[in-house]
């Protein structure tokens, strides 16, 4: 066998190997790319799930913070006794602050406004005590919104003010129903 023949054989072998590599390589690549697609979908699902879990964790933390701040856990509220309990708590807070309470009026709230009841109360006391009451109402442990507040001088009681408060007690059951809808 001459050198030329050897060279021809060598080149032929290289071409055959390259062809086989390409042929089987493409097949393997094709199969591999199918697997890669499935893997990409799986990885995307994992990423999505991870972001969902993170959002849920954040919500749990936020709930803890707000719940602690307002001293309120909406899951424990029951509509049947909510207004009575809230009204009693407000009156108790007022009395603790040495505020002399006047008339207290309760009326049913607007259903559309997700309100359970509206309470109007009058009281007389020192300015600091009335402001303390305003602050306390937010953290009584009931879903109470102060709709309006009015200060005016207390008649025949120098150094004291009369405060008129309109409070709204929110209906969490209604809120839940609206959210589900």
């Amino acid at each position, binding site marked *: 066998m*001459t050198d030329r023949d050897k060279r021809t054989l060598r080149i032929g072998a290289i071409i055959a190997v390259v062809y086989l590599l390409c042929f089987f390589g493409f097949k393997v*690549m094709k199969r*591999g790319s199918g697997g890669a697609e499935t893997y990409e979908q799986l990885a995307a699902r994992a990423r999505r*799930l991870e972001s969902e879990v993170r959002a849920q964790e954040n919500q749990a933390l936020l709930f803890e913070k707000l719940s602690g701040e307002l001293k309120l856990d909406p899951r424990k509220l029951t509509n049947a006794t909510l207004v009575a309990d809230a009204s009693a708590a407000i009156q108790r807070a007022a009395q603790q602050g040495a505020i002399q309470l006047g008339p207290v009026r309760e009326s049913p709230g607007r259903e559309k406004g997700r309100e359970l009841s509206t309470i109007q109360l009058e009281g007389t006391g020192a*300015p600091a005590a009335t402001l303390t009451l305003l602050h306390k109402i937010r953290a009584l442990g009931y*879903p109470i919104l102060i709709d309006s507040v009015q200060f005016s001088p207390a008649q025949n009681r120098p150094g004291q003010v009369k405060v008129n408060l309109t409070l709204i007690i929110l209906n969490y059951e209604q809120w839940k129903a609206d959210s589900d809808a």
Partner: protein
Amino acid sequence: MSAIFHRAEDHLFIEFTDAAVFIACGDRVLEVQPNEGAIRNAVALLRPSATGEEIFCLIPAKGVSIRKIAVPARSNADVERLLPMQIDTHFPISADELAWGYAELPGGVGTMKELMVAAVRKETLKPYQSLLAETGLQPRFVIAALARRALIPAGVGSCTIVDTSGSRWEMLQETGGLPSVRLIDPGSPLLKEGAVYASGRDAAKVSATLLPGATPTAAIAGLRAMLRRGEAPLALGMSPQGFAAKQATTQWRWAATAVGLAILALALRVAEPGIRQRHVNSRIKELKAHQANLPKLEREVSFLQYLKTNQPSYLDAVLSVATSAQGIKLDNLSISRRGELSLRGQMQGAQGPSQMRSKLLESGYFSLVTIDEQTPVPNQQQVNFRLTALLRSQPERPVASSVAGEKQKAVRTNSPPSATNMAGGAASAMAAAQPPQVSVQPEAPGK
């Protein structure tokens, strides 16, 4: 990897001269006495850093014969087959008793190939072989004088190269492309003809050009230069094709490694999903289990946020009014959940309500402050007024928040302010604005 991709400098070079042995690898060169122990120690010292595969032994020109032989050959195999017979003809002793090597010369006609054949008696190599065999080395033998030729700049035709390292100088003369080697005495008149290049210890004594780049020795430098250029040196006992094939194998390793890396990169791409899929699956399972343990609090959080954000900060509003009102007799102050503030009162001087309005606006808590009505009280230099304003929501209070920040800095403690403190702060601010005037007075009967 370094063993695959080596440089010419990475081989181990051993040059024997009359007086010393030079052993070089990379940048390191050792000059030792030509005895077994010294050579063994030097080789042991340098060999670990020799990543190249070859060990070259450069021998002196003593006993070397160079001939030009023409061989009728179509292929290299023909050369290998016919050359020993031609050597038998051209040399006084049989090819079997010689260690010989050859290089092809340019200028062959048709199938006739012109070869430069260098040969030396096998007994001449034996001392070197036995010396190196002790160190476990099997080197390629190269004639040092021929290696020095590689340092001659291109374009120089006939020339003389002389090495002055030994007691007798080695002279290589090149005429018509065929070199001849002989030993001469120092100061020989032969050196005065043509272009002369000199190297070695006494090179300065020769009126000649020094061989360029002849470090560590001219022969080692020349051999390295040849290897760098990809030329096959004339090695005794080995055909140039054999050497070239070896060199080519080394070069092919680059290509093979590149192809291997490319295939590995593709394979990794294909294999990655298979390898990582299990990990991703287990991660999804973990996340699902964790998610199942977390409570769903979306509605509760939105309810609490609504509760927190849907009423103005009444205390802030009262505090702001209290600090803005100087000399006021307050009759009525009302604030609604929508942030509407309404204030009725009496002030000293006609400018009082306007000044109060400016202060309320400056506080940053209020917008749209309007004095709805202002009526002077006859004979008393006082004015009755009615004022309405809109309380800004929390994010719209840049000035207010900075003012509040400064106030907070002033009273900062390690514990958050209690309800009583905050309410008390607002009330005391209300009272401290102008104590006698700001205190809330009962309405006059019949008013």
